[in-house]
C-alpha cells in the first residue's frame, strides 16, 4: 500500500506536464524491423536446435536426421526471405507495367534485381524443408525410429 502511494506521488507531477510525458513514440518502418528481427530470431533458434539435436542421441535416428535436415533448410529459407525483404526496399523503382499487360515486370538493372528475382522463388527452400519434416514425422509414426518415452530411444 505504501509502495502504491509512493508511486502515485512520483507520477503525479507528470500529470501537470503532459507535453513532456512521451507516452507514445512514432515507429517508422517498425513493422518491417519487427518482421526482420523475427526472421533473425527464427534463424538463431533453429540454429541452436539443429546443433543441439545433432549432439544428442536423436541424431542417430533416421527420422530425426530428416527433421534436423528440414531445420537447416528452413533456416536457409528464413535467411533468404530476410534478404528478399531487405532488397524489396532497394528496388522499388525497378517495377513497371508494360502496356497491354496486367502483370508487372522487373527491370534487371543489376545484381540486386537479379538476386531479388531469384529469392522470390523462396518456396524452393520452404517446400523441401516441409517435405523433410513430413518424412521425419512419417518415419516416427511408422516406428522406424521410436519416438521418445525415456529409455525407449536410447540406442
Amino acid at each position, binding site marked *: 500500500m505504501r509502495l502504491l502511494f509512493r508511486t502515485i506521488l512520483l507520477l503525479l507531477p507528470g500529470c501537470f506536464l503532459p507535453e513532456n510525458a512521451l507516452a507514445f513514440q512514432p515507429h517508422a518502418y517498425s513493422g518491417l524491423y519487427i518482421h526482420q528481427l523475427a526472421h533473425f*530470431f527464427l534463424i538463431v533458434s*533453429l540454429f541452436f536446435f539443429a546443433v543441439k539435436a545433432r549432439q544428442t542421441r536423436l541424431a542417430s535416428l533416421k527420422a530425426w536426421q530428416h527433421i534436423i535436415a528440414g531445420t537447416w533448410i528452413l533456416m536457409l529459407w528464413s535467411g533468404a526471405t530476410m534478404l528478399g525483404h531487405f532488397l524489396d526496399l532497394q528496388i522499388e523503382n525497378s517495377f513497371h507495367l508494360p502496356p497491354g499487360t496486367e502483370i508487372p515486370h522487373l527491370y534487371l538493372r543489376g545484381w540486386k534485381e537479379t538476386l531479388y528475382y531469384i529469392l522470390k522463388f523462396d*518456396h524452393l527452400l520452404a517446400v523441401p524443408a516441409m517435405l523433410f519434416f*513430413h518424412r521425419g514425422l512419417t518415419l516416427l509414426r511408422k516406428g522406424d525410429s521410436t519416438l521418445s518415452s525415456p529409455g525407449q530411444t536410447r540406442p
Partner: protein
Amino acid sequence: MISISMLPVWLFDFGGALAMIVLSGLCLHHALALARADRESPLAIFLLWFCGAIFALALSRSSGHILKHLLIFSGKEDLWLVLAPFSGSINSMAFIVIASVTLFFNRIETIMERMVRDREKIEKNSQDLFRLNKDIEAVIAERTKAGMALRIAHEVRNPVTIIGGMVRRLLNVYPPEEEVRLKLIHILDQARKLENLVSKFEAVRPESKKIFAPLNLNPIAAEATESLQAEARAKEVSLIPALSRTPLFFHGNSPLIKIALAHLLRNAVNACATGNRVIIATEMTAAGCQVTITDDGPGISEEMLEVLFDPYRHVNRQSSGLGLSYVKQIINEHLGTVTVTSKQGKGTTILIILPTHLGELTGTYAA
C-alpha cells in the same frame, strides 16, 4: 535493359503456398498422432508445438500470398494494401512462436536425458531388489531345509542309537549258532542304515550357503556408497568412501551385504545434519574383512545402543523397526559380527567383521 515478367514468380508462389499449407497440415496431423500415442513424451509434445507453430505460419503466410495474388488479379490491390500489415504481423508472431518453441528444445532434451537416467536407475534398483528377493528366499529355504533335516536327524538319532546299542548287547548274549542272532544282525544292519541316513541329514547344514560365493568386499561397499550419494547430497552430508586398495575377499552373498551396508549408511546419513560427514572404510584385519562406518552426527544414547539391533526398536515412525535387526541377521548369516559404539554429540562408529572363510573356500572350491 532486360525486363522480366513477375508471372513465373506469382505462379510459383501460388503453387508453393498451397503446397506449404498441405505439407504443414500433414506434419501437424502426424505430430498430433504421435502426441496422442505417447501423451507423456516431452519430445512428442515439443513436436506438436513445433508443427502447430509451423502450420500457423504456413497458413497465415500462404493464405496471405494467395489472397494477394487473387486480389491483385481481380483489381482490388487497395484492399490488399489494407490487409498486408495484418498478414505480416501474424507471420512475425508465428516466427516468434516457432523460435520460442525451438529454443525450449534444449530444456526438453535435458529433461529427457534426466528421465532416461532415472529410468535406468529405477530399472537397475528393481533388478537388484528382485535378485535380493530371490536370494532371501533361497536363504530362508535353505535355513528351513537345514532346520528340518537337523530336527529329523535329532528325532531319529536317539531311538536308532538305542536300538543299535541294545541289538549289539543282545548279540553278545546269544551264542553264534542261535537262529535269533541272524535276525538280530538284520536288525543291526537296518539300524546302521538309519544311522547313515541321520548323518546324511546332518550333512545338510554344511552344504547350505549355495548362494554364497567368493567376493571382493570393496566393489560391494562402493556400490552401496554410490546408491546413497544422492540422499547424502540432498541432506548436504558428505558421504566419503575410504576403501582398501587391495581386494578383500570373503565368502558371502553380494546383494545381501550390499543391502546391509546401504541400510547402515542410510541410517547414518539420516541421523546426520547438514555439514556432517559419514565415512565408510574397508580393510583386512587378522579377524577378517573389516568395514567401518563412522559419522560425526549426534550419536546414539546408551539405552538405545543396548537394544539397537532388536526388532521393532525403530527411532522414526516411517521405519518398520526391522532394518537393523535384519542387518544383524545378514551379518550373522555370513558368520560375521557387527558392533556399534557411539558417544552422544560426537558420533557413531559401526564395525563389521566378515570372516574370510579361506578354509571353507579351499574345501569347497579346490575340488
